[in-house]
Structures are given as C-alpha cells and as structure tokens.
C-alpha cells in the first residue's frame, strides 16, 4: 500500500468516527425535571450521577436518576457513546452499591415515553432520550 493510500484510509476512518460520534450526540439528549437549576453538566459530572456517586444537585436537592432497560438500543448508545462504558459495567457499579447496602440503583423505566413522563413529574429527576421524542415538560441539559 502506498503512503498516499494509507493517509487517505486513516483520514476516512478518523472522519467517519468523528461523524458517527457527532451524530449520536445530536440524537441523544439528556433531560431533567424543570426544578433542576443546572443548564449544563460536564461529562464527568454526568458519569458521577449515573454511577450513583453524586446524589445531590448544587442547590442540595436529591437527584432522581432514571434509566431505560439494559436491552434498549437508546440505553446502549447512552452508555457506550456518551458515558464511554459498557452497560454491564455500569450495572456492576450499581450492584456493588446495592448489594453492599451503601447505595441505590437508578429507577428503571420500560419506554422513552415513560421516561419523559417520570422525569417531567419527579423533582430533581434526570434521564435521557432520543431527540425526536422530546417535549416541553422537561428541560435539556447540555453536556460539555
């Protein structure tokens, strides 16, 4: 393979990987209850919330964490593309908290519609959803 061909191949691979990440980021949205004051979160904060380490918002309100079932494609994308972790790894972290009696696991919901409804009516709630399912009863949290 010539040097030029290699450079072309690497460029194509890098661009396609960047485009696919950007595409996931644009379709998946992190949503929260209207009562949540935060407008944006660092990715590290989002990871801390979803590993159930961070349990309070900055105003002292309790964070209520919602997740879709482990078999849902949206949940898999949320874990792998956004949090950069396998869904099973995340579950192991929850189980370690739960089975040591030192923490709780997130509330599991069956559908994105249920996720929207519960996040909308639960103070301090956070969840995620594909952008086409959004509605105005929740707010979108920007991930930095």
């Amino acid at each position, binding site marked *: 393979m010539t040097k030029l061909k290699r450079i072309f191949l690497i460029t194509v691979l890098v661009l396609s990987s960047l485009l696919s990440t950007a595409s996931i980021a644009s379709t998946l949205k992190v949503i929260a209850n209207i009562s949540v004051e935060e407008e944006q979160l660092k990715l590290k904060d989002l990871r801390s919330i979803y590993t159930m380490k961070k349990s309070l918002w900055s105003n002292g309100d309790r964070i209520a964490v919602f997740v879709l079932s482990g078999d849902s494609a949206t949940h898999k994308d949320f874990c792998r593309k956004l949090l950069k972790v396998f869904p099973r790894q995340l579950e192991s*972290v929850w189980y370690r908290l739960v089975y040591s*009696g030192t923490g709780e696991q997130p509330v599991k919901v069956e559908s994105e519609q249920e996720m929207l409804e519960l996040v909308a009516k639960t103070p301090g709630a956070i969840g995620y959803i594909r952008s086409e399912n959004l509605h105005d009863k929740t707010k979108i949290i920007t991930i930095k």
Partner: protein
Amino acid sequence: MIKQRLLLLSSLLLTMLSGVLFAGESEQSDWFQRNNWSAFVSQTAIYSSDYNFLSQSDDALSFDMWEAGFLFSTAVINKLTFSAQVLGRKVSESNGNDLRVDYAFLSYPLYQTMNDKIGLRLGRIRSSYGLYNETRDIPHTRTTIVMPQSIYFDMTRNSFYSADGVELFGYRDFDDQRLSAQIFFSKPVVDEDETGEVERLQPKNLEGKKSILAKISYGSEYDGLRTSFTYYRPEYEVDVMFSVGPIPIQDNNSSFYSESMITSLEYNQFDWAVTFEYLRHKFSQNIPSLGNVPGQSADNRGYEEAFYLRGLFRFNEYWEAYLGYDTTERRKNEALLNDEKWHDINFGGSFRPDDNWLLRAEVHYVEGLSRLLSRDNVFSEKQDPYWTAAMFQVAYKW
C-alpha cells in the same frame, strides 16, 4: 448463636413489616420512602481432580455450591436509611447454618454537599477490606466464580465478613474520581463451623472480642486507576484443648488475632481491566498454658504474603474473558509444606444474555493446599500438591 438468631428474626421482621405496611403509603409520608428490594440465586457445578474444593468435588461432579440472597433497603425517615441482606450459601458439607444475616445497619449522613459526605453506620456492617469483600458473594458483582482465595479466602469467610459495630465514613469527589476513607470499630461475628479450620487446637467457645478496620481509597470504578489501602485487625477469645506430645493442654484463656494489610490497584478501560491486590497477613495466638511446657512458648506468630493479578477483557456487552494468577505463601526459613502454599493459575469466561441471567465457566490449575477447607479434606505430605478444578455457574438476579 441465640443472639444471631434474634438478629436474624428481628431483621426479617423489620424487613417484612416495612415492606408490607409502608409499601402502600402515600408519597406525602416521610416514613419508609424509597423501598427497594433485590434478590439473586446461583448454582455452581464443580469437578476437581483431587481434593474437595468448595464442594464435595474430589474426582466427582458436585452441585453442592449454591448462593442466594435477599436484600431490602429503605429511607426510614428523612436522611436515615436502613439496609439488610439475608444470605444463604453453601460451600462445605460441614456448614450447619447456611442462612445468616450478612448485614443489617442504619446509615445517617452527618454532613453532605454535592461533592462530599461524612456519615455514620450502625449495626451489622460488612468489613470492606480490599476492593471486593463487600460484594464477594454476588455473582453479578464479581469477575470470577471463585474469588481469589489468596485474599478473599472462603475457609473463614463468615468469621471475617461482617461485624456488629459502628462505622464512620466520608468521601470527597474530584470530578469522577473519589477520595474516601472509613474507620470501623466492631465485635466480630463468629461462625462456629469455621473453627474446624484450626482442627489441631480443637477450639471451643470461639468468641469475637474486638475489631478495627481502616481504609482509604481513591479513583474511579470504571475509568482509569483506583487504589485502596486497608488495615484490618479482628481479635478473638477461644478455649483450646490439644496435646503437645504426651502433654494435654486445656486453656480457657487463649486468644488470637489476625492482622491484614491489603494494598489494591485496579486499572479499568472501556474494554479491559487489570486488578492487583497484595496482602501481608500476620496471625498471632496466645495460649498461656503453653508457656509452662518445656520448649514451647505462650505466644506464637505466623506471617504470610499473598497477591493476585488478574486481567479481564470485555469482547462486547455480553462476553468477557479473564486470566489470573493467585498466590499465597507462609513466610518461614524452612521449606514450605504443601498446606502452607497456594499457587493458582486460572482462566474463564462470562456470558450475560440480559440484565438478569449470568453464565460463567472457569478452570483452575493449582499447586498447594493452603486455601482448601480443612473440614472437607484430609491432608498428608504424601499427597500430590498439583491438582485442577473446572466449574460452571448459572446465576439469576431480580
């Protein structure tokens, strides 16, 4: 034993009462909010070429090993929470009492902000030594079927696992890295079945005296490095009856302690992880009557060093494979006997088809006998110290 039964009964009663009476309460009530329960069950089949390894598996396929747990947690009122777990587990034919309250404790945060917390736990609490002791019995939270026996030994698992006392804990988060510390003062909970592990002393009336555990850790559980250092020293009182040559020894004022220092390192990436834990273990017994026997001393101490190194590869969200080396040796100047060493090369794989099911297969190639249960095996120096074990586990969680 009576106290243990009372604790078991009261915990079960509280668990059932809170679940039944308050599950239907309106959300306005402050009492018994966020009621959660979980349960799991597992069955393991083990075959070993020689010796009984956590089952009656000597040259036979054994289905003896099983585990089952039921956990309940609730926010009793405001920030006061309660958690309890009842565990059933069988790894030995001589286990008469398979069901026990693993833990049952109240927890209260004395100070809490978005990034830090200081709190207090009171009751029967798990001894959180190393990275994995707190959740060692739940198949879904561990990597392997059998925990590395060098550090998480099953011979005296119950007597070292949880204790009645008070724990002060705290942490501070730095982004997704957590610095945490805890100190736990307690009275060890003893399992009489496990006194068989020191058969030579024929111990009777083993009782936990006091225990201290201190631990500091830093890092992230799933991304990058996490480290911890644990100091753990439980002390026990025991009555012994044995012989030194023709001289019978009976002493009701004997005691012993175990002192462990565990250094733990784990590095996690998206699709792989490496774990290393090192234990320096000192054990000391005091039998005053032995001081009167020529050539004997009332105080006897022993040391052992142990470590394991394990690599894990995640092929995808369903499949994992792992390879480990697990070793422990007594520290002494003479040659080691077979029951003073343990070198275990092991490998295996896991398959998790969904959130609930877990299937795992594992093979061990072992030199040494020091982590086999004395109460299930008869040892002699003529026996072959090299042996293998293969096992398969099915687990389900709710």
